[in-house]
Structure formats: C-alpha cells, structure tokens
C-alpha cells in the first residue's frame, strides 16, 4: 500500500470520464476503500469511543460502536444478513467519501430514519446536494425498503440485498454528488452470474495491471476471481439456464390450460411460490452456538439432504466448511511456539482477511454448486422435493456464512489489534460485505429453484393423471 498506489487509485476514482460500466458492479470495495486517502485522513480523526475494547470483544457487530448499532436496530426487523448489508453501506459511505465523523454520521442517520420511511422523497431531496447527503438519503431509502419487506425475508430481502450489495455500492463508491442514477436502482436487468462475471473480469484486469506495473506487490484477495476458481460462476450460470428454461416451460403449460384446470394449477403453483417467500431466519439460535469445527453444519446438511442423491456435492460442502473452521482456529493461534510470551507472532490482518475472503468465496461456490445439483436431480427424477427443505437449506447456509464472517472478523480484530483503524476497518468491512454478498448470492440461487420446482410439480401431475 504505497502512497503512489493510493493516489493512483484516487485519480482513477475521481476521473469523471471513467467508464461507468467499469464501476457498475463493484464487488470489492475493500481495496478501493483501503486506498482512499480521504478515508485515511478521516479515520484518524475518529473518536476513540466508537471502537472501545468492550464492543470489540463482542465480535463483529459491536465493533462499529453505537454508530453502527443505530442502523442495525432499524434493520433487525428483518435478518442478520440484511442488517449486515446496511452496516456496510454506511461504512462504505464513510470510508469512501470521507464523511465528517462516525458520530456525526450516526446522528444524521438517526435523524433521517426518524423522518419517516418516505424513501423516494428523501432520495429526490438529496439529489444534487453534497455527496454525504445523497449517500445518506439513499441509505435511508434502503432502510425503508428493508423494513417494508417485513418477514418475507428471502424474496423481499433479495432486492434489498441485491442493490445494497452492488448497485448502491457503486453509487456511493463513485462519490459523485451529481450522480443521478438513483432511479435505475431497482432495475435488475442483469442476471446474477453476469454481475459476478463482470466483477471477476474487472478484478482480473486489475490484477493483470498490477502484475505488469508492480511485480513485487502481493496479490489481494479477489472474491469474484476466487468464486470463479471454485467454479461457482459456472454452476450459477448452469442453474440460471435451467431456471429460465423451466420458467418458460411453466408459462407455456399455463397458456394451454383454461377454466377450472387453469385455476387449480395456478393455486398449486402459488403454494410453491409461497414457500419461497416465507423463509424466516432465526437469529436467536445463532447467538450462542459453540465452535464445533463445522460438525453441526454437516449434521444439519446431511439431515436435510437425506434421500436427495446429492451426497457427493454435500460432502464437498461440509469438507470445505470443516477446512475453513480449522483455518480460523489456526489463525487464532500464535505463529510461534509456546513460551515466547513477550513477542507473540500472529498472522497479519491482511492474511486473515485474505483467508476470510477465500473461505467465503469457497463456501458460496459450493453452496451454489449444491443448488445446481439439486436442480438437476429435481428435473431428472420423479421424486418430489419439498420447497421447505430447500428453504431450510438456504437458512442453514446463510447462517454458516454469517457465523464464519463473525469468526473471521473477531480473528481480524485480534490480528490487527496493533494496527490503526484505517488499516483494520476496511478489512473488517470487506469481510462483512463479502459475507453479505455471499448470503445474497445463496438466496438468489435458492430463488432460481422456484421455476424448477414448479415444472417438476407439473410433470409429476401429468404422470399421475396418465396412470
């Protein structure tokens, strides 16, 4: 992280002629944030009480202090993952734009929150004002979206997560007061795999550029590239293909029916749809789980997938999870042998961060692989797979992602205890951001299964009536 590099990044960011498509799906704000000179200056002015040791010890959430919490309480109506997304948006806004101070920001956020849920008005109002204003305006509108989703977390939370995770990030990342793409925020014309693919390609471009200019530089953890390396992108794309095909098949079946037949089928399909939107994430349960090295996760996974003929893929996932758990516990141990109490050698914060990003990418890729395999099994066998099993599976996977991110961030906090906030904070934010992205990819993949269950239902129905 040389100064020249930081300023180079800054020039690039500030350039008004910068190709907007290259910023359209920014998935790795960590690097950017870390290099932002404004953020550095700001972070040093940060009041000490926002990161008191007491809150640090609680793990990830507490770290952001009261400032993060006020936003968090707004979001607790929904899920942990959604909450994460919001916290990160705030943090992102702060590090990228160099907004005054966390306390000030917190007051502002609180104020905006109290002004009601009129997200659209707020947005319009803040357009063209200071970058802080527009960012905060948008945040409050996001908050209201999240609140409105209520308990139908998966479907409702999806959109929120989708644009918190990506589109919104770009807007904030861009830090341009005149940036008026806000109305395009809800447009989801790109498929998930496209979004990820673009992100990966940009990362590759950056890596290629970095390699040619500075061969000495250590490789930074790129979520998108790692996700692709674990074949997550390919599985996602294949799943999307199957989902799209099934969707059009369902539509064409519906056009051939009329009258009572149509009404009845629609009712049946609505029941399937319902199970895709009624997923609840049980937060309390995840609070006090012991670190079992992934055994509980494996048990839940095995129970859920019993009889579904995807054991090979599920095994890959549990193995990945176990390996990740042992990575975390290894990283929590000092590097040097016992006895040397004075100077304990620890893994660097960057190392922990890289491991965290890699682990999240692997876990997510394996989860999506599992969904893809399930889709293939459902489409090629006549057995009935309950939507509720799939939603429980999604819950289990997201819970694991959330727990992992907590483990890694607490490990990061320890590893970076001697480092300044401006180094550590973006790393922690990066982990939470990718965890939030991971959860939203997993949930998106789950949603892709809906048309597959629908067409499978229609096929079974047809077989039944033939008999």
């Amino acid at each position: 992280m040389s100064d020249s590099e930081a300023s180079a990044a800054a020039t690039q960011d500030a350039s008004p002629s910068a190709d907007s498509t290259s910023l359209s799906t920014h998935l790795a704000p960590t690097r950017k944030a870390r290099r932002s000179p404004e953020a550095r200056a700001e972070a040093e002015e940060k009041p000490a009480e926002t990161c008191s040791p007491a809150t640090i010890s609680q793990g990830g959430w507490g770290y952001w202090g009261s400032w993060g919490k006020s936003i968090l309480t707004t979001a607790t109506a929904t899920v942990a993952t959604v909450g994460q997304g919001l916290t990160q948006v705030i943090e992102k806004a702060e590090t990228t734009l160099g907004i005054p101070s966390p306390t000030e920001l917190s007051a502002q956020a609180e104020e905006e929150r109290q002004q009601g849920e009129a997200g659209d008005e707020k947005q319009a109002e803040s357009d063209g004002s200071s970058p802080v204003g527009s960012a905060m305006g948008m945040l409050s509108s996001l908050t209201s979206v999240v609140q409105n989703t209520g308990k139908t977390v998966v479907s409702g939370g999806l959109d929120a997560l989708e644009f918190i995770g990506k589109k919104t990030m770009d807007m904030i990342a861009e830090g341009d007061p005149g940036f008026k793409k806000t109305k395009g925020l809800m447009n989801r014309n790109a498929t998930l795999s496209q979004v990820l693919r673009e992100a990966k390609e940009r990362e590759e471009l950056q890596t290629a550029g970095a390699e040619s200019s500075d061969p000495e530089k250590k490789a930074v953890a790129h979520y998108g590239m790692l996700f692709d390396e674990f074949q997550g992108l390919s599985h996602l794309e294949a799943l999307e293909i199957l989902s799209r095909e099934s969707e059009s098949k369902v539509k064409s079946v519906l056009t051939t029916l009329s009258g009572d037949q149509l009404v009845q089928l629609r009712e049946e399909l609505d029941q399937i749809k319902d199970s895709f939107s009624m997923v609840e994430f049980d937060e309390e349960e995840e609070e006090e789980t012991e670190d079992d090295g992934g055994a509980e996760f494996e048990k839940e996974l095995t129970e859920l997938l019993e009889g579904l003929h995807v054991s090979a893929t599920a095994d890959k996932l549990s193995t990945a999870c176990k390996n990740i758990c042992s990575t975390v516990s290894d990283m929590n141990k000092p590097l040097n042998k016992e006895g040397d109490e004075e100077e304990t050698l620890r893994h660097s914060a960057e190392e922990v961060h890289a491991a965290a990003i890699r682990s999240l990418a692997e876990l997510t890729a394996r989860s999506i692989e599992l969904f893809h395999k399930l889709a293939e099994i459902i489409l090629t066998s006549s057995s009935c797979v309950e939507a509720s099993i799939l939603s429980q599976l999604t819950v289990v996977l997201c819970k694991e992602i959330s727990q992992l991110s907590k483990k890694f961030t607490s490990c990061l906090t320890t590893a970076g205890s001697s480092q300044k906030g401006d180094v550590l904070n973006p790393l922690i934010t990066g982990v939470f951001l990718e965890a939030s992205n991971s959860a939203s990819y997993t949930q998106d993949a789950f949603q892709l299964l809906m048309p597959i269950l629908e067409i499978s239902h229609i096929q079974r129905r047809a077989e039944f009536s033939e008999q």
Partner: protein
Amino acid sequence: MEAIWLYQFRLIVIGDSTVGKSCLIRRFTEGRFAQVSDPTVGVDFFSRLVEIEPGKRIKLQIWDTAGQERFRSITRAYYRNSVGGLLLFDITNRRSFQNVHDWLEEARSHVQPHSIVFLLVGHKCDLEAQRQVTRQEAEKLAGAYGMRYIETSARDAINVEHAFTELTREIFALVRSGDITIQEGWEGVKSGFVPNVVHSSEEVTKSDRRCLC
C-alpha cells in the same frame, strides 16, 4: 493462479455414458487418473490454461456433461454457449461409436444459431486387445463430418494434452481468421486481459499462420 490469458474458450465434452469423459478431463486438468468415479450428475466444470504458442495462453472452461440418458433433457440446455467440444466414444465399445452420429446431431441442433467445432476422440486406447472400432473407420467417420480424430487414454496419459491443445488451436485459428467472433450474450469465446497488448496488432495484419501440428 495466473490471470493473464488471451481468450477463454468454453468446451463441452459429450458422448455415451462410461466412455470416460470425466476421467479424460480430470487427467487433463488435475493430472491424475481416478480408478473409480461416480457417474456425472448433469454437468460438472473444470478449467485449465493452455499455452498454444509461447506466451499465448488460452483459458479453457470445460463443461463435463452426464452421458446417462436420464440427464439428456437438461444437458441439451448447456450446448449453446460452447465454442467447441470433444465427442468421445470408447474404442472397446462399438455401441458408443455408433451413437456418435446422434450426439453430433443433438449438439448441432442445440447450438443454433452458433456453430461448434468438434474433435472426435476414441478413448481408452490403452485397451488395444479389446478394440472394437478400428482407427480407419473412426477417421473416416470424423472426416465425413469435418472433424479431426485423436485416440486417447486417460489411464496411460496418451494424447490427452494433444487432444485439448489441438482443439484449442483449431478454434484459435478460426477466431483469428474472423470465422468465429466474440458476441454479446454468448459465452463461447471471451476475450482475456493482456497488459501489453501484443496480439491485437497481429490480428489486424492477419499474417498467415502456419499450422503447428
């Protein structure tokens, strides 16, 4: 992992069940031979870089399809975004050779409007004693469909590199001549990132390229 590559080609590997598609790919991407392997469910993915000329790397993204009939309805959906493919049969299994024609028809009808470059691969050539398909007849069939023919063995690592590199070169030549173009919304060929852009000027001048085989 080395991130610099000129192009990414997506290849699909098809052929009857148990002809050894997954084993061939694993030998190519992982360098080992699995004695026992489960039948592929739907499709699996592998990738590897291939250096076709010094300094010119192509990333191959390989879609390994299930040969089992019951997966046919879904594997069909996966053809469209492939620029090339390996069509495998088992030289010790005449039936798998007879099905080559059907596989080709199936693939060709599902890649529309794009076209796909196939290489015919006679697999398990280490089992010479049990051979049921002669090299001559396989070459003749390949020729009739405008394909090249290569015999491979994943177990003894015979011609595995050669098969993939050969196909990659063939596609590369077509990309370079403009017969295959990168298209929006089609994943068959993707352009990579090269910091010092050497290849573009070459492409413009279109110097005639000698076949390296």
